[in-house]
């Protein structure tokens, strides 16, 4: 009977170890913050859970598996919250994702003003900031009608500038 237990816990421990390795490797390889966090949370959830399960099998019927279950429950509660808080703080402080969708253009939600999971108060402030930036852009573009390339450059610069400005403003307002 304990041979089966040993084999099962060995398998669990190995896969857990593999998950941790992949997570660590992923953190190294991923291009920027959010994807890297995705890889790290892989270690937290998959790796830790499997290793704990493997150890529980080793523990037999003593108090040890109960304590390991308590640790598992604690981790099960805290690590998703931690990664949520981390992601939220990163998004608010204006960390931009460098990802592209298949067509190569920046992902729609990359634009700061229509960000998804933002509590109501913050997004209203952001929307107003976005509108003023847009008004400024149109005023600047209108008078320079003949130098179309200059306007296009201004628009592109303005688009980039407000993104940076609003990000900085929200960072100051938020942090």
């Amino acid at each position, binding site marked *: 009977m304990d041979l089966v237990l040993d084999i099962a816990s060995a398998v669990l421990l190995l896969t857990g170890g593999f998950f941790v390795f992949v997570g660590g490797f992923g953190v190294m390889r991923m291009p920027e913050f959010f994807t890297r966090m995705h890889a790290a949370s892989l270690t937290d959830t998959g790796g830790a859970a499997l290793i704990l399960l493997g150890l529980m099998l080793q523990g037999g019927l003593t108090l040890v598996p109960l304590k390991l279950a308590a640790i598992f429950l*604690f981790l099960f509660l*805290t690590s998703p919250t931690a990664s*949520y*808080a981390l992601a939220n703080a990163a998004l608010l402080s204006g960390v931009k994702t460098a990802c592209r969708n298949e067509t190569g253009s920046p992902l729609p939600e990359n634009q700061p003003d229509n960000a998804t999971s933002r*509590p109501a108060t913050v997004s209203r402030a952001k929307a107003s900031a976005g509108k003023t930036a847009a008004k400024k852009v149109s005023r600047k573009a209108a008078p320079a009608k003949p130098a179309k390339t200059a306007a296009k450059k201004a628009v592109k610069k303005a688009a980039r500038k407000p993104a940076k400005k609003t990000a900085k403003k929200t960072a100051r*307002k*938020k*942090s």
Partner: protein
Amino acid sequence: MMTIVFSLFLLTMLVIVAVAILRTDNLFTAVMLSGIFSLIMAANFFILDAADVALTEAVIGAGISTVLFLSALALTAEHDRSPPVGTWVPLLTSSALGGVIIFATFQAPRLGDPNAIVHQHVAPWYLEKTPELIDVPNVVTAVLASFRGYDTLGEVFVVFIACIGVMSLLGRVRPRRESIEEDEFDKRTDNLRHHLIPRVVGKMLVPFIVLFGLYVQFHGDFGPGGGFQAGALIAAGVILYSLVEGGPRGRELVPEWFSSMLVALGAFTYASVGVASMAMGGRFLDYSVLSHDPIHGQHMGILIIEAGVGMTVAGVMITIFHAFSRRGIR
């Protein structure tokens, strides 16, 4: 053999993190790395069979000291723009220091060799006599509380002075010059309020952390644990609550006067146990005179002083955290 491999790996990690702390310019990263440094140090202690010390280092080194550094960072500038100054003199002195030590430790006993002098002289007496004289499973708690109780008394008063110092430095109402625009600082400490998820999960965890702290407090005689770890754990629970709920709510939960009184009460309890044993005819801190049967007296003495230590450490950590977080708000 396995411990050598594990400790080899962990010690190298330790040095890498220490070098990273030295080289990074951003203070925020340096504080986070120092938290990781303490955690690896705690793992190292566990491998070297020091369970109590590993628990203390994890709670105090990784937990409380990171929180203190972060709250100090919130009140001061965050970036360390200055490059190292005149690197020759510090480099010379520190490498001379390191060289002397490495030169000396060639004659030191190897890790774990049983016939080192350290394991011959005083330690075996403790291991034999504890079941006989004090009858407490955890020998470290027996030595900490009874055989060398005078050291721990001094220790409790060191923590007591830290609380006095922080209160006298940061206690008074803030002077006219703000170190940082105060409304922005309010944002930082209170902005977690409308982060729904951390708030809900945090509030759910706080009771269990405090419960675990009390378990460690009274379990100190049987397994790794005791007054220091328990006090720091309870303080960690209260600090989590005031982080998640915002400073003012935290101060409502554990008011300022209560936590500083807790500190003075803890130190007073410890000293009065000593004086009580003097009054009962024994020497200072001699618990065996506290009750009819010496071993029962030892148990009672250790229990009371561990409670005193727990009260003091919890009170100090909470008072210091509130002193720092209150500093930002008028």
